[in-house]
């Protein structure tokens, strides 16, 4: 396992997906980024690692700080840790080489790391705060604190954000949010427009930042799956699975086969639930209220069966370290099968209606277009990426149990417009229906959970799951048993980090009234990126 042009010793993490870890120097940090890009790989996540006191191999305490990056290639995921030279030795803040020139999506992740951990990308073009809106002091770094004795933080006044100003004849601004008109999450959009045409959109997010990653370090590793499942409520299954995978990987635990199959069953049901909701909302945003009424009814049917079978409408807290909370018997399996048939029949009818509706297609086609070349350069990922020819899907690229027995067919499209994102959703609904039937038919017997033994030594684990929106990546670092197996750092990465900046490009040249439609076609998470 290697990155071309780099002589690195990678350690394979014990996980169902191929994930490797290595420590790098500042020079290798940059070479790796360029090498991955040149090979067609992607930046998966970027975050500041654990900070502060740590024990080295010889047992002597020393100050430590790390910057971490994870890359995805067709071979798997690479997690690189770069040790930073502490301020005590250099007299300047913790710095590392800027990755944004290689991977533009790194920019916001770097700004977030600066706000939360006080580590800075050297020479980065955009150094405005991202998550810290002024509500806490600029020199307070929440992830540098000892979770056992958190200081009382003085609340401070919010500060103005220097938006980029577009000037010229007839240019004016429309400011939207953070409280939006619909029942959606908060964020601020600043449009610079001429007439109806959008010249530029600048997003300001971070409004729902609620200290999730600091909270993570206060929880016991076996309990923290609940918080992971609340990073983004619509992706609770994918997050809980990715966190549990990371924990099980750190603990060298293999879960029972049946547990993995049940997790996948829930993941596919979550995918369908969200696609049903979005397909309805997309119809509605194009003034086709019939679509919303029909799809929201199907979604409600779907959630009610989830409640009956798994005990929760969104399947929150159903995935736990070591497995899942409940098994399905023959009656429940039958109920799930019947629902697949009933809902699929209706979705096919609606698909035909959507396809044949000229007014609807007129709104969908060419709106919010992201061409494949731009998508690739900016790192567009997940569902939106696949609609712009970015053919990546963890279930297909690195099929783990039970996807290795499924031959998952990836849904892709090359137009990159709203219509393409709608088409990918329809295709994924039908494919997930097929997967669910196959799972119910072939699920192996056995236990649905096993005990998880926390490690004696400090350990590292990672989880990588294809959620409905895109890949969810979790990087976990645990302390040893002597330190009560504290969570030193847990980074929970949402694909929205990569996709939000692309939305700024997708809207350019479109008209303002199409923004809700284009925005919904991406349906990105605020809470997932605000953390």
């Amino acid at each position, binding site marked *: 396992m290697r990155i071309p042009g780099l002589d690195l010793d990678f350690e394979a993490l014990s996980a169902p997906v191929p994930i490797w870890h290595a420590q790098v120097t500042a020079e290798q940090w940059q070479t790796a980024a360029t090498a991955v890009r040149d090979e067609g790989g992607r930046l998966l996540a970027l975050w500041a690692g654990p900070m502060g006191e740590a024990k080295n191999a010889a047992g002597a305490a020393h100050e430590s700080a790390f910057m971490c990056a994870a890359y995805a290639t067709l071979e798997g995921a690479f997690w690189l840790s770069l040790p930073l030279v502490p301020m005590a030795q250099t007299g300047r803040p913790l710095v590392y080489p800027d990755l944004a020139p290689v991977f533009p999506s790194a920019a916001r992740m770097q700004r977030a790391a600066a706000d939360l951990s006080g580590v800075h990308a050297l020479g980065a073009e955009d150094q405005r705060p991202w998550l810290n809106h002024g509500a806490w002091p600029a020199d307070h770094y929440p992830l540098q604190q000892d979770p056992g004795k958190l200081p009382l933080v003085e609340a401070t006044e919010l500060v103005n954000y220097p938006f980029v100003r577009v000037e010229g004849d007839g240019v004016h601004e429309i400011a939207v949010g953070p409280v939006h008109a619909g029942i959606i999450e*908060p964020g601020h959009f600043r449009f610079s427009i001429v007439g109806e045409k959008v010249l530029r959109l600048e997003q300001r997010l971070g409004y729902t930042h609620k200290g999730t990653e600091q909270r993570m370090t206060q929880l016991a590793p076996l309990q923290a799956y609940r918080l992971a499942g*609340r990073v983004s409520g619509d992706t609770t299954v994918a997050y809980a699975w990715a966190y549990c995978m990371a924990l099980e990987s750190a603990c060298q635990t293999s879960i029972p086969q049946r547990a993995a199959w049940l997790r996948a069953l829930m993941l596919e049901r979550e995918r369908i639930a969200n696609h049903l909701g979005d397909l309805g909302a997309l119809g509605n945003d194009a003034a086709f209220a019939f679509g919303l009424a029909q799809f929201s009814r199907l979604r409600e049917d779907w959630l009610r069966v989830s409640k009956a079978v798994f005990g929760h409408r969104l399947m929150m807290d159903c995935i736990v370290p070591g497995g899942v909370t409940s098994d399905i018997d023959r009656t429940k399996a039958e109920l799930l099968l019947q629902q697949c048939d009933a809902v699929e029949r209706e979705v096919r009818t609606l698909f*035909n209606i959507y396809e044949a509706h000229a007014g609807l297609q007129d709104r969908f086609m060419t709106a919010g277009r992201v061409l494949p070349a731009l998508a690739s350069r900016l790192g567009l990922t997940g569902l939106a990426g696949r609609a712009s020819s970015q053919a990546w899907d963890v279930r297909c690229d690195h099929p783990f149990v039970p996807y290795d027995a499924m031959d998952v067919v990836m849904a892709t499209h090359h137009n990159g417009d709203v219509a393409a994102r709608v088409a990918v959703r329809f295709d994924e609904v039908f494919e997930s229906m097929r997967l669910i039937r196959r799972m119910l038919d072939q699920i192996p017997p056995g236990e649905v959970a096993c005990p998880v033994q926390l490690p004696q030594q400090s350990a590292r684990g990672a989880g990588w799951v294809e959620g409905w929106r895109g890949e969810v990546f979790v990087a976990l670092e645990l302390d040893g048993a002597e330190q009560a197996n504290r969570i030193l750092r847990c980074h929970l990465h949402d694909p929205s980090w990569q996709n939000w900046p692309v939305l700024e490009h997708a809207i350019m040249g479109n008209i303002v009234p199409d923004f809700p439609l284009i925005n919904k076609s991406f349906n990105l998470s605020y809470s997932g990126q605000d953390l």
Partner: protein
Amino acid sequence: MIWKVVRQIAKTGIRTEAAPDIGAIDAAQAARIQQELLDILGQALTIREVDAGSCNGCELEINALGNPYYNLEGLGIKFVASPRHADLLLVTGPVACNMETALRRTYEATPWPKLVVAVGDCACDGGIFGESYASCGRVANVIPVDEVIPGCPPPPLDILRGILKAVRRRVKSGARVDG
């Protein structure tokens, strides 16, 4: 084209279910709920939803209230786009410190009777996020709250019950719209 739409509508039929029981209400509950709303407000109940930092789970269930099963608008309750048009604020999430100002301003912009219902465990008591450098905790730490609806997230029927309870309580306490 249009016949396909019509056929699907006809085939689906009316799926709306009875409104939830909120205590001593019987078969005529829907009509009574509407009458109560009229008594209190003299008009339909309008709601402005504010996500003050939730994980989006509560929003999914609030959105579900609009589906044909719950048919919220059929009860004379609707969501509006501005707090200035709202009788009631439905607030979710632990209040993120980054949202505190926006929540206060939304509250200030809301005219009388300015009802506030906190939805979900986080809005009720801070939930799993609690209070920290970035979270002000429960909604009541920032603005006055009339009713809380626990649950993570609370199912749509619980949310509907909570909204009706908040409105009824105002009736009992004798608050009336004047003019």
